[in-house]
């Protein structure tokens, strides 16, 4: 089955989510996973929904939201992603320090180099402080101590601090 991936981006105001989800419900679409935040003050939402609608129908149904030009919406048909079991371990990477170009790219390059997958990422710039928090899935054969040292090296060259720690939840 095909899903629809919908992104809504633009000027924030109260009611965007209420209007969007009402139109999707009218179309019989089932809202599955979604994530919304404000990025530098901009409203930014991504939704994945399932249901019997064509992307063009959804765009038409959401056109009321984009008519004043402050929001842009995209609708894309996407295949269902099979659930993939990981053989690795979950980690949390935090980087923070004075803002400068290349912090994210240099740090995540180290993660990619060992085949690590980033499963969640937030970066924030407030004043001169830059913060990155990423959830990583590291393959079981990764030498974590070596990765940690490589990230520390890169971080030191950029003048920022980095912490890599296990992100395992405690089952209760």
């Amino acid at each position, binding site marked *: 089955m095909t899903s629809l991936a919908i992104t809504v981006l633009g000027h924030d105001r109260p009611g965007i989510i209420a209007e969007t989800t009402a139109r999707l419900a009218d179309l019989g679409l089932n809202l599955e996973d979604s994530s*919304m935040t404000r990025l530098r003050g901009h409203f930014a939402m991504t939704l994945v929904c399932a249901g019997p609608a064509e992307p063009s129908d959804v765009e038409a149904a959401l056109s009321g939201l984009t008519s004043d030009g402050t929001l842009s919406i995209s609708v894309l048909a996407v295949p269902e992603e099979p659930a993939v079991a990981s053989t690795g371990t979950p980690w949390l990477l935090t980087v923070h320090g004075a803002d400068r170009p290349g912090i994210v790219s240099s740090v995540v390059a180290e993660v990619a180099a060992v085949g690590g997958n980033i499963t969640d990422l937030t970066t924030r710039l407030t004043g001169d402080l830059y913060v990155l928090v990423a959830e990583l899935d590291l393959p079981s054969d990764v030498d974590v101590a070596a990765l940690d040292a490589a990230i520390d090296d890169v971080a030191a060259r950029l003048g920022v601090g980095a912490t890599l720690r296990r992100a395992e939840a405690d089952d209760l």
Partner: protein
Amino acid sequence: MNPLHVDLGVTGSVLDVVRAPAGVLSTPSPPVDPTAPEVVQLAADLVATMRVSPGCVGLAAPQVGVAAQVFCVDVSAHPKTRTSHGTFVLCNAEVVEASRNERAREGCMSVPDLTGDVKRATRLVVRGRVPLTGAEVTVTTDAFEARALQHEIDHCAGLLFLDRVAGAHALHQRQTYL
């Protein structure tokens, strides 16, 4: 002998663990008579079910589909444990004192695909009754046992860790690890 630990005198059966969105998980459970034979049996069943579930450090009656304020706990083998009272069961438990909140990531057998960051007290005093004898006990604990007790008392109140998640981005999809 500590009145917290009693030989229940019955053999527990392993029960099926129910998963959200089962109604029993989000409905407050009634208090029980800790001396009633069916409560003693339930206590033994909870312990038996906890024992066969890998990594399980606590189980509350609503998680086996029974609306009752009963749960068992055993954090003795967990690396984050400081104080541990071993394996025990409490009925009608309530928090008397709680302080020093810390945030940590929790999972739950009844919500197997998600985890969440939850603030819990790390210093805790709980009062409850022991099954079979009905003795009233006060448990003073800390760290991981404190977290487990609050999580199980929440289950008895119809609350999941989902109700306590620290923010919209404090809910996480659990990877399935082989």
